């Protein structure tokens, strides 16, 4: 069997992140925390990129999927009384994360189905609404701590879990984009009607995109919950979804490397510029508008060939 480059990458990333756990205690805890956040945001932004960037389904509900993954995995590890450092914690955490991902992807399926009929603005606001509905439901569920939040989550997240998931996301996206299957994603994004005409099932593409994106968002939520050890519904409001969307847009929708760079940059930047922390969202939003007007393809992406027959200025109806 020919050893694929991407599999080599995946395995070496697993090994390196495994090795990294042995030295992470020597790292300054503050830097370590930033490193973990960078990893989690890369997972979130890259998984949203599958939905928004590759399949072209503009979703604003990513924090909702993250919340589902966070709460599901937290419930599992709490129910199993997993404690940090026990031998049992490794498989238990793996199962908890996986379940978080699976439950989130089930919800991805539920959101994916209306997306078959909606596009653009409607889809955006429906997914936003969906994320908010999840938050409101969690706020009303007493066994999840309701608005008080969920406490006492064991601190199981370490660099191994975060960075092997990062590697896995990159692996999945890389192989997706370079496969025939992934080309179908891009075709649906660029022109749904034409894609249907050449025999691509746009329904399947959209649903697969939502399920995959939601799965990784769910895992990211689980990693986040087991790092901060306390979660409450307000952490997963639509502001969080917006933050992730901004990362994807600044990095360039449909750009693997661009989104990784922007997720890294936008996580470090507010930490590096502590003094201007209150301007963070204002700067993000201005960036968003300026980038849309001047560089709609994203900061780190070269402009693709300009479409000659782009949408005409006036719509004849």
């Amino acid at each position, binding site marked *: 069997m020919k050893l694929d480059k991407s599999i080599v990458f995946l395995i070496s990333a697993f090994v390196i992140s495994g090795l990294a756990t042995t030295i992470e205690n020597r790292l300054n805890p503050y830097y370590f925390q930033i490193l973990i956040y960078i990893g989690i945001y890369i997972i979130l932004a890259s998984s949203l990129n599958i939905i928004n960037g590759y399949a*072209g389904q*503009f979703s*604003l509900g990513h924090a909702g999927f993250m919340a589902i993954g966070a709460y599901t995995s937290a419930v599992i590890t709490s129910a199993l009384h997993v404690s940090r450092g026990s031998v049992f914690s490794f498989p238990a955490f793996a199962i908890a994360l996986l379940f978080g991902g699976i439950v989130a992807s089930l919800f991805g399926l539920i959101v994916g189905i*209306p997306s078959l*009929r*909606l596009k*653009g*603005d*409607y889809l*955006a*606001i*429906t997914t*936003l*609404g*969906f994320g*908010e*509905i999840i938050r*409101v*439901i969690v*706020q*009303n569920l007493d066994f999840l701590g309701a608005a008080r939040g969920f406490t006492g989550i064991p601190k199981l997240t370490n660099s191994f879990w975060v960075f092997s998931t990062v590697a896995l996301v990159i692996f999945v996206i890389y192989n997706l984009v370079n496969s025939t299957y992934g080309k179908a994603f891009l075709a649906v994004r660029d022109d749904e*009607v034409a894609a249907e005409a050449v025999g691509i099932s746009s329904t399947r593409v959209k649903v697969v995109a939502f399920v995959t994106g939601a799965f990784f968002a769910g895992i990211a939520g689980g990693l986040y919950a087991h790092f901060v050890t306390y979660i409450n519904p307000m952490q997963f409001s639509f502001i969080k979804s*917006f933050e992730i*969307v901004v990362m994807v*847009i600044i990095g360039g929708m449909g750009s693997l490397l661009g989104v990784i760079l922007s997720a890294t940059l936008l996580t470090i930047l507010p930490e590096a510029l502590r003094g201007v922390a*209150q*301007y963070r*969202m*204002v700067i*993000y*939003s*201005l*960036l*968003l*508008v300026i980038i*849309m*007007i001047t560089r*709609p393809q994203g900061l780190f992406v070269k402009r693709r060939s300009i479409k000659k027959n*782009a*949408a*005409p*200025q*006036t*719509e*004849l*109806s």
Partner: protein
Amino acid sequence: MSELLQQIINGISLGSIYALIALGYTMIYGILRFINFAHGDVFMVGAFIGYYLAPHVIPLFGGNLILAAPIVLIVSMAGCSLLGVTIEKLAYRPLRARPKLTVLITAIGVSLFLEFGGQLVFGPDPKLFPQLIPSGTVVNTSNLVINSNSIVVIVTAFALMMLLRFIVYNTKIGTAMRAVSYNHYAASLMGINIDTVITFTFILGSSLAAAAAILYATVYPSINPLMGIFPGLKAFVAAVLGGIGNLAGAALGGLIIGVTETFVVGYISPTFRDAIAFSILILILLFKPSGLLGRHESEKV
């Protein structure tokens, strides 16, 4: 029975505020075919203009609220019109020929900018909106209380809606608006200046949002820079519910959302307040995406 009546009146009062905001969404959608996400935040700015203005205007009239309130309302409407037109000129106009998604993201950007810029300028903590409507009880029986607020809100909102209806259906610029919403290209061939019509639409929409804000703030006097998000989203749902692009639909949708929300808060649980509109949205988009009064548009290749 009288509790039901009470809830209906509160619902209509809230719903007519949503209707005013929804009219802005629906008009801008009708002309430009995109959702102006920043509309809810223009609403918020309207409330803050009123907040800063009222303490200066009320003493001018010797504390006479009946004279002062309309002045506050009109200045706030003018301020928001200016804001709406500026947003359109700076952010939306350069993008008019671009894909819809680009415009949508820009609108989200403008919305976030107003929200967080508002937190910097006005401060993030809630502020108490000054009293603009003389308080009083119009009807007061053992279990039905109707105060002057809800009556003033309903009457003002309906007067503004009638004024809007007159402008859109009985004036030259209104005819031009309808022509542009029907077909940009043909309208421009008939000598209609598209840019003027778009500017005028933003003036109408933003001033209605400001009026809604002043009314909203008299009923819910705690205002903050993020206050526009949920009324904005709910009004958007109202516009979709009624059939986006349809004026009567937006008004009807606003009333339905307002009454439903009041009922859910009153009879089920106030924690579901913000989820109800989204549930309605998902249902309407799944079963009747063109809305109650909208006409169905088939997709063209």
